[in-house]
């Protein structure tokens, strides 16, 4: 069953002024429950606008967005409830921290939902666990944390609302390789355990290749492709035309294939690639012997 369905949505900034700029044009897609969808596109392709439309921060000028089969703008007064169901983590979310303690900051969303104390407490602890915030950090000021911890605390603040759909806009930007790996693992883990729908916007093809089931490719405000990760990355040429590329390992495998090696050119991670190359080498050495 589809959890989010977008029908011909369009959005224009600065409508009616000289600075008018079309950010989205006639985009339609369906996202199924429990999917992990990657959204990629060059800078200014409309990714950020798209995700803000999905949780009701922006209102589409044309078209409709359905959440669990209901038009999210059916009752504009109730748009807050949509925002609780579609949790949105913005770029550099650590700049939104404001409370005295990490605990209170994570509890800000659930508090706004009007939940009772025990439920809030349960959610804060479970969100902190998912994002790897140690118990003893909960009583610290968020401004005392390290960069990576701040980022995870901010993400915990959104997860604590227990949204049906979690949207992350460039969650790994500006983190060191270890912080990046940890965060991606946490997201993957969250997705597996809660079996929620997750949308991940990223510029890193490697990140997307590693965890996404399907990929939505945006280009100049339009949907370019929406297909399984393997299928999208097998169309390297088309991706390169819109300023993107395939993961490095996929590119290497494609080149090896063209050079006549017997490898799978749709490999997405380095580990898979290693296995493919090793088995191909084994084959060739057997032939020689």
């Amino acid at each position, binding site marked *: 069953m589809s959890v989010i369905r977008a029908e011909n949505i369009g959005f224009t900034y600065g409508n009616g002024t000289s600075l008018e700029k079309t950010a989205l044009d006639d985009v339609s897609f369906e996202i199924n429950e429990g999917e992990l969808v990657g959204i990629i596109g060059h800078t200014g392709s409309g990714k950020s606008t798209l995700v*803000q439309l999905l*949780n009701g*921060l922006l209102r589409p000028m044309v078209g409709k967005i359905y959440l669990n089969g209901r038009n999210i703008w059916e009752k504009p007064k109730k748009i*807050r409830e949509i*925002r*609780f169901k579609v*949790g*949105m983590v*913005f770029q550099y*979310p650590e*700049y*939104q*921290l*404001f409370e005295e303690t990490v605990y209170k900051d994570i509890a*800000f*969303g659930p508090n*706004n*939902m009007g939940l009772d104390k025990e439920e809030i407490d349960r959610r804060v602890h479970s969100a902190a666990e998912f994002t790897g915030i140690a118990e003893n950090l909960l009583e610290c000021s968020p*401004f005392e944390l390290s960069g990576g911890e701040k980022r995870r605390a901010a993400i915990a*603040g*959104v997860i604590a*609302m227990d949204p049906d759909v979690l949207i992350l806009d460039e969650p790994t930007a500006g983190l060191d390789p270890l912080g990046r790996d940890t965060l991606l693992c946490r997201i993957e883990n969250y997705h597996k355990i809660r079996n929620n729908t997750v949308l991940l916007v990223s510029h890193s093809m490697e990140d997307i290749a590693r965890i996404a089931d399907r990929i939505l490719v945006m280009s100049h405000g339009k949907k370019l492709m929406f297909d399984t990760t393997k299928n999208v990355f097998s169309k390297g040429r088309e991706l390169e035309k819109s300023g993107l590329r395939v993961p490095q390992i996929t590119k290497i495998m494609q080149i090896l294939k063209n050079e006549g090696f017997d490898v799978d050119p749709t490999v997405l991670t380095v580990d898979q690639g290693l296995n493919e190359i090793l088995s191909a080498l084994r084959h060739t050495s057997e032939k020689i012997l």
Partner: protein
Amino acid sequence: MVRDITLGQYVPEKSLIHRMDARVKILLLLMVLVFIFACRNFVSLTAISLFSIIIILMTKISFIKYLKSLKAIFVIIIFTGIINLFSGSGDSLWQWQFLKITWGGINNAIFITVRISVMMMVSSVLTYTTSPTDLTDGLERIMSPLKLIHVKVHEIAMIMTIALRFIPVLLEETDKVMNAQKARGSDMENGNVFRRVRALVPVLIPMLVSSFRRAGDLAMAMECRCYNGGKGRTRMKVMHLSLTDLIAVIVSFLIFGAVIYLNAVYPAVI
């Protein structure tokens, strides 16, 4: 949304007024304002008003934009107009209890209304035709004699320039933080004033923190480029007085002379 607020009022055009030196514009504007207030009768007021309107037309910016600048002080204009209308002395034309309208009152009301409107519109010429950086540079140069009494003129000007430069940046960031908090269900559009002010706290604290961080970064970046205050600092764009400025000064002084003359020749009405 926040980003819709127009910032600074500078309207880039190619006109003589735009090309004038900022210092000359600031000083002449001050004098024009003084002379608008020095007018004692309708003849001199008409003269300086016509002069102001000619300047306004010379800027090549639509007259409607100048009229819109009056919107901000519309209430003040109406209020002073009405007060003056009822406070004239002489034979009453119309009376209701203590309120009476006289010819003197009507005269005063028209005079004051014209005076304030022209004053406001001619002030807009300065902000519309001078970029904020030129304006602060001009102010710095005009105030430089104050250095003798240890006023930190350069520092004040630098603070103004930096403040102006960072307004758009901060606005954009406010927008982002507001969206992030809205996504966590903070409600800034509904509820009474008290609740709305409380809803601003989650926006103001992150903004305060990031402003300090930004200020620290900026100070570091400036020091890395060897900034150490105004001493011995030269400019990329040195201000020059041109022929245009000279002509502007001469014409303005002729008009000021005319105002003094007309004030003396015709009887004062105010």
